[in-house]
């Protein structure tokens, strides 16, 4: 830590984190509206229809995660490289351009909503492709901003210390940015459309984002536990091998039913079944380091960051690993594809794999900004982590219960017709699941309010020794 003398790159990181947390709030709010509409379909009908609420819900998710990811890189980059970020002025400019563009895109989603069936709609209103609805002009702007970000990362690393963590991030970020291009074209062929659409969605969340998490997770371990860098970086390379080894061809599990050849059944089944393996590794690694560290009588330097990292390892394994594996084999997916199964899996996976670790990274920055030697967990911080985590876990269980009903009634009993769809949606057990989902959404929002409160106030509520920087040995 550098006391109150932060690098300019780290000050930029704080701006990214701020916008990220605002968008996180927007994500939860619009998710709540959509969850209400599942139970009360007339709620906001014709004003903010489900489709609009959902677009804002999932786009705010993707954008805030990207903001927090960029922020975390700007935070650790000067620290790792041992020098100020190169091209920081350009980086600051890019931040304001991106934020203005995001604001315009969201306002157009909310107030223009839809357009006529013409190319101009794709360019200026919506592309209408789940997760990457942003119109084409915004796509081009995003690419420009990301190029500036990549320049910052590469130029800084090349002229500074090139650690293993930075080497992985350099390779990973260029793949992450390049993949976005796969989603930037129009075709009348919906099968080809979805084929490339998955290159963005899957190769982000099940490959490049996972590797990003492994790298930033390694950095958090070093910062919170003083973990041995050589061991952390060795684990990181093993994780990269396992994540890309399973995740790249695991893409095949999205190619079962979209007009693709049958060989994707076997390829997708095999490699996606391997995808949970590195997630177990991550989990074991963090718990092992924790045990070793406390066995040596050391304190955790940033308890909230480490606590969120621990939730990450459980959440990633459960949400991405277990819930993903539940319906990844084609013989099961034939009946579960396009049902609430995907919603159940998606909620816990995005939360477990990404939301958690990025909150952890933000707590590192909070400690760094205040220049504290240690950061303890406050009461509000504990309640935030408990409410958000329990809320997300039970929300996933509730969605899974509804998913069972949908699969059995709509797919099994009715052969996937519209009549079957609505019979399942009106089923009492299905609606009970939706009710619990809404209740859990409220719990998560309560946790979010506490989280924001804690992020703003926790540095003022630390025990006296944190300010003095006294490192006392804990009882072994």
């Amino acid at each position: 830590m550098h006391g109150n003398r932060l690098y300019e790159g780290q000050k930029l990181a704080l701006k990214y984190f701020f916008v990220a947390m605002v968008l996180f709030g927007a994500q939860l709010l619009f998710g709540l509206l959509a969850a209400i509409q599942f139970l009360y379909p007339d709620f906001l009908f014709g004003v903010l229809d489900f489709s609009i609420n959902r677009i804002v819900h999932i786009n705010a998710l993707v954008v805030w995660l990207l903001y927090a990811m960029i922020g975390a890189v700007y935070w650790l980059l000067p620290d790792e490289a041992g020098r100020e970020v190169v091209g920081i002025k350009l980086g600051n400019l890019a931040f304001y351009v991106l934020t203005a563009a995001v604001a315009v895109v969201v306002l157009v989603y909310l107030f223009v909503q839809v357009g006529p069936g013409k190319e101009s709609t794709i360019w200026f209103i919506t592309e209408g492709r789940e997760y990457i609805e942003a119109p084409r002009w915004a796509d081009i702007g995003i690419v420009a901003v990301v190029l500036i970000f990549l320049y910052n990362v590469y130029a800084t690393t090349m002229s500074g210390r090139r650690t293993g963590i930075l080497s992985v991030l350099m390779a990973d970020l260029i793949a992450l940015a390049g993949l976005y291009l796969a989603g930037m074209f129009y075709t009348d062929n919906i099968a080809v459309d979805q084929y490339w659409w998955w290159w963005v969605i899957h190769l982000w969340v099940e490959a490049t984002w996972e590797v990003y998490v492994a790298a930033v997770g390694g950095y958090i371990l070093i910062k919170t536990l003083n973990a041995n860098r050589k061991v952390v970086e060795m684990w990181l390379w093993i994780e990269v091998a396992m994540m890309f080894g399973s995740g790249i061809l695991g893409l095949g599990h999205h190619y079962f039913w979209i007009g693709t050849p049958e060989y994707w059944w076997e390829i997708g089944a095999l490699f996606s079944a391997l995808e949970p393996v590195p997630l177990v590794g991550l989990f074991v690694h963090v718990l092992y380091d924790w045990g070793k560290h406390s066995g040596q009588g050391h304190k955790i330097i940033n308890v909230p960051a480490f606590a969120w990292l621990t939730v990450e390892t459980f959440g990633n394994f459960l949400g991405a690993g277990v819930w993903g594996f539940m319906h990844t084999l084609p013989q099961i997916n034939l009946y579960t594809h396009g049902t609430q199964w995907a919603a159940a899996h998606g909620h816990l996976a995005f939360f477990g794999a990404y939301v958690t670790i990025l909150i952890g990274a933000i707590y590192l920055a909070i400690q760094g900004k205040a220049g504290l030697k240690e950061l303890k967990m406050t009461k509000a911080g504990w309640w935030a982590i408990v409410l958000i985590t329990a809320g997300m876990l039970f929300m996933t269980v509730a969605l899974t219960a509804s998913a069972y009903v949908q699969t059995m009634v709509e797919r099994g009993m009715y052969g996937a017709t519209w009549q079957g769809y609505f019979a399942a949606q009106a089923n009492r057990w299905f609606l009970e699941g939706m009710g619990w989902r809404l209740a859990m959404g409220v719990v998560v929002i309560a946790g979010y309010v506490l989280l924001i409160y804690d992020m703003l106030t926790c540095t003022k509520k630390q025990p006296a020794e944190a300010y003095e920087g006294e490192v006392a040995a804990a009882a072994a």
Partner: protein
Amino acid sequence: MAKVSVWSSNRFWRRSATWVTGVSAVLLILLTFDSMAQMQMGTAKDIKNKVDKRIPSPVVINYKIEYKMSRKRGHEVPIIGGMSPDGKSLYQVKEKFFGRDDYTEAEARALIHKGKLTIQAKNCMDCHTLLGNGAYYAPDLTKAWLDPTWETLAPAYGGKEYAIATFLQNPPAMAMHERKMPNLGITKDEAKAVVAYLKFMSAIDTNGFPRNFGKIKGAVDAWK
């Protein structure tokens, strides 16, 4: 210095990671070339020569489309223009679409082009699923053209294409469920184009998804 085992050598794992990633990426690219070749949209010539395509020519809107069990492949497949005794598409039996069954390739392509643009411009995918991908707030549209609901409504509108097009132009007026589709300002031309797209999409070979589509009748509602 003590000899370091290869298993705890960062260099070994860095190289392994690079190789594994490289090999996986190359395999994915090679498979993508093959998939793209198999997924190209068919042409009117393919239909004339009775060549089955995973994504057929848009002129399939001139033909009767069914979804039948293929014993050879072990799941349902789209059958276009009647079925031969060995379970293959005959590309013979026509079906009027808005009063015509002679759309040229250019006309049919123009229709589905407008249809696809409309489907994106109205954010269909953020309530419905298409090929099973999207949101789960409204029914899957993959084989919507073949859904029994439209068969029952068809006579009152002079054909199911008219029924669907009427619905799309003012969905709340024809609401089928408490969870209504909003009025998205879909014009008459856009509605026709969207219906053409739905018919075209129902002829895409989805490897048997959705299973048993429309085959089960008289199922009982659970606890309700």
